[in-house]
């Protein structure tokens, strides 16, 4: 008999605001309808960026730096321009002067000069793979040949690729205009520095806290840069029309932010730019920054033709944002009863070639799972000669958890406590103040830990040589931000929903289900469409675990708008006041008469014409996601290879709109976390060149490497969402590296302080232990 590996635990005692004492009886939410885009996806008919073909379309190719750090002395494009079939060549000289310009891109303001210099290098190249020039030609092959004809004279400079090396006073300096700033942007260094940001958070009295501790553990950890590893490389096509209108078809997590970045970089009015989001083959945070869009636009403007640009896999690795590499030192002190009384962390994250990495979230996540009365957390954002980092699922949290959750595990061992009991003893809950932040509202960490402790997996003893079990917890904020939606009622009773969120992970359906629930109709009767930037209101990125939460809230409000209008139509039919009409389960009722939503939709023409709902929301997050991982591993002492035997991931989803998609996010995030734990890393040589820029050499886990990832959804509804949604996409990646590390320790007695815990490193650690 097959084992059902899915489970949902509902906290019925804690319901969304205003919903009474009983669990809501949803008709659509919590079911598992077939995804609206499923047929297109499985038949290959869904239109991705590389499927686009336009009349007269040219093909672009980027020329990238072979050096990790060098001054650009001269660029000669004449030979390339003379090659038959070449229509345009661009360099940074074609970009407007963006000095001192800042732009608010929805998730914070960015330095446009840095954004522009990352798109096309200006004066210096700062990492191998940095774009320097681009050509557009009649075919990809002519473009490649032309790219080779562009002559660039470099003056190589010393490079630095490890964060602690980049912080040294004598390190190669990347930018003459970057100084160390504090949290507010106040300059704290007299000289230019690779350390672009210094953060400090303190609460209580850290010295007294450690003095009162019975057990203190302090450890240092390193993590390598890893890539998001999306299957679809970056691809963009631009058409700069003769009327000055620029249209961009692209693979992006946010059409509106791509529009804004492109408009700002090219200094054209935002109304002149339309971005059409194509289907996306993964992003995980890596498809929020623009890379190709402005370059393709410049080439199109110069050539007068549409220009398509597609990255190779090597370009994706070398030219787009990986995660920060990091160094983290964590010190925890606890009393004999397990109460953590002091916590200290020192984190240095690399930002890649330009300032603005993930150090803020790293600092704020490192102890986010626990109530700590005395803490000191210090963080540094450091530039070095690697691609500019980009977000990757809970950006900055995984590195911090890898450190903190191992120290918690060690504390539990020293105290002789069950590791879940120690976490329960200190677990954050409603009212807990966290690093740099206000107190939590209602959260579900304790419920998630309790559910973990009662799992058959946790209760089953692990046996066998070289086998061990690890536990770890993870946190991510989950953000709100802006979403818009509109919906039109069709005469057959279906509803067409137009939204601006790129569909990642089935969000078309999870958003459509919330509209369907609100209207009392079937999920299949909502027809969701992801629209371009001219066809729907402003919508922030698909990121931050926000779409089912925020765009779902927009769909819900759209539904309320439609319900209000439909009630008026029913009142017209029944010659009564709208407030006299009741609506329940998709049916309008008044004085013994009733009409279903579908029936009423067929009578819109006689009651006033079309009905359209619309909503624009800007919910204020965060929604606070917590997860717990339980993993069993076996370590081969001869090779150092770690095999994952069994994995259970638990997470508080608030309310799982479509449980299959929640489980998919939990499994996907866990698998990416296991890859980060065991194999994935950028290998740099001593000249700062990545030596494994292909999937042959950059080892991601496959189905053959892993067991089925068991999922347990915990539901402690978010009171700030009408259906209790918290968002789920990012939290699942946070705990796995620490959980696997703890499992390796309990299997071998060797604690791993560095990611990835690849076979050579584990083997070396085992040899060292046994010497």
């Amino acid at each position, binding site marked *: 008999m097959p084992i059902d590996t899915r489970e949902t635990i509902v906290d019925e005692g804690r319901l969304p605001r205003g919903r009474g004492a009983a669990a809501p009886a949803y008709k659509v939410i919590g079911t598992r309808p077939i995804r609206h885009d499923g047929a297109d996806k499985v038949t290959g008919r869904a239109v991705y960026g590389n499927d686009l073909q336009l009349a007269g379309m040219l093909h672009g190719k980027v020329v990238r730096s072979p050096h990790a750090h060098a001054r650009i002395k001269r660029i000669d494009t004449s030979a390339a321009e003379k090659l038959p079939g070449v229509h345009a060549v661009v360099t940074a000289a074609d970009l407007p002067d963006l000095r001192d310009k800042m732009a608010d891109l929805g*998730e*914070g303001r960015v330095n446009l000069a840095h954004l522009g210099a990352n798109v096309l290098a200006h004066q210096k190249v700062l990492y191998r793979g940095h774009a320097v020039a681009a050509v557009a030609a009649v075919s990809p092959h002519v473009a490649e040949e032309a790219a080779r004809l562009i002559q660039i004279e470099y003056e190589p400079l010393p490079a630095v690729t490890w964060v602690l090396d980049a912080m040294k006073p004598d390190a190669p300096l990347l930018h003459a205009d970057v100084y160390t700033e504090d949290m*507010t942007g106040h300059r704290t260094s007299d000289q230019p520095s690779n350390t672009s940001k210094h953060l400090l958070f303190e609460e209580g009295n850290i010295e007294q806290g450690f003095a009162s501790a019975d057990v203190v553990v302090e450890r240092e950890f390193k993590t390598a840069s890893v890539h998001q590893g999306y299957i679809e490389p970056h691809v963009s096509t631009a058409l700069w029309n003769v009327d000055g209108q620029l249209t961009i078809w692209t693979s992006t997590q946010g059409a509106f932010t791509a529009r804004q970045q492109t408009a700002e970089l090219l200094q054209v009015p935002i109304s002149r730019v339309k971005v059409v989001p194509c289907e996306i083959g993964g*992003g995980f945070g890596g498809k929020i920054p623009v890379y190709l869009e402005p370059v393709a636009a410049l080439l199109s403007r110069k050539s007068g033709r549409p220009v398509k640009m597609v990255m190779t896999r090597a370009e994706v690795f070398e030219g787009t944002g990986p995660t920060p590499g990091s160094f983290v030192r964590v010190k925890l002190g606890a009393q004999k009863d397990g109460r953590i009384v002091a916590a200290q962390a020192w984190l240095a994250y690399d930002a890649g070639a330009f300032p603005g990495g993930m150090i*803020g979230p790293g600092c704020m996540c490192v102890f986010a799972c626990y109530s700590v009365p005395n803490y000191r957390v210090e963080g540094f954002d450091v530039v070095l000669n690697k691609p500019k980092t980009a977000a990757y*699922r809970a950006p900055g949290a995984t590195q911090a958890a890898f450190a903190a959750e191992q120290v918690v595990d060690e504390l539990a061992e020293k105290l002789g406590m069950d590791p879940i009991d120690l976490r329960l003893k200190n677990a954050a809950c409603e009212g807990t103040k966290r690093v740099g932040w*206000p107190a939590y509202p209602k959260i579900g960490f304790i419920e998630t830990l309790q559910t973990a402790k009662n799992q058959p997996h946790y209760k089953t003893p692990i046996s066998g040589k070289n086998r061990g079990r690890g536990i770890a917890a993870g946190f991510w904020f989950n953000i709100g931000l802006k979403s818009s939606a509109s919906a039109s009622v069709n005469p057959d009773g279906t509803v067409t929903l137009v939204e601006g969120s790129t569909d990642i992970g089935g969000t078309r359906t999870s958003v459509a289900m919330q509209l369907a629930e609100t209207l009392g109709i079937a999920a299949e009767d909502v027809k969701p469409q992801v629209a371009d930037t001219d066809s729907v209101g402003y919508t922030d990125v698909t990121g931050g675990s926000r779409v089912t939460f925020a765009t779902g809230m927009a769909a819900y409000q759209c539904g309320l708008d439609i319900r209000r209008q439909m009630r008026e139509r029913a009142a017209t039919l029944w010659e009564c006041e709208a407030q006299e009409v009741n609506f329940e389960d998709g049916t309008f009722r008044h004085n013994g008469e009733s009409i279903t939503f579908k029936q009423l939709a067929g009578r819109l023409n006689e009651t006033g014409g079309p009905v359209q709902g619309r909503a624009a929301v800007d919910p*204020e*997050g965060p929604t606070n996601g917590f997860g717990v991982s339980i993993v069993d591993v076996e370590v081969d002492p001869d090779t150092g290879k770690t095999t994952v035997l069994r994995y259970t991931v638990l997470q508080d989803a608030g309310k799982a709109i479509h449980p299959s998609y929640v489980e998919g996010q939990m499994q996907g995030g866990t698998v990416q976390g296991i890859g980060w734990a065991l194999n994935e890393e950028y290998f740099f040589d001593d000249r700062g060149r990545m030596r494994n820029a292909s999937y042959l050499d950059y080892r991601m886990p496959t189905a053959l490497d892993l067991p089925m990832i068991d999922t347990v959804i915990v539901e402690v509804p978010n009171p700030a969402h009408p259906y209790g949604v918290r968002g789920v996409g990012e939290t699942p990646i946070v705990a796995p590296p620490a959980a696997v590390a703890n499992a390796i320790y309990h299997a071998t007695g060797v604690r791993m302080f560095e990611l990835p815990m690849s076979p050579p490193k584990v083997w070396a650690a085992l040899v060292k232990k046994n010497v």
Partner: protein
Amino acid sequence: MAIVYIPTQLRPLTGGIECVVVPGTNLRQVIAALDAAHPGLGARLCGDDGISPGLAVSIDGAFTNRGLLAKVGPDSEIHFLPAIGGG
């Protein structure tokens, strides 16, 4: 009166005080009151055109995206923290 939690790196401007109680019905008024009580705070929290780049503001536990015009209640708790995004 709103309670403003002073970030660690700004506490030298308040003589180490961690919380300041100030009047104001929106963030602009609150920051003006903060600056009057502890000169220099306003310039650190605000740039030429609003809240300093890279800073986020939480009012009563929720991010606000409304900058200096964000409404502040009589018992609101205000935190300044690094902006976060997501993947």
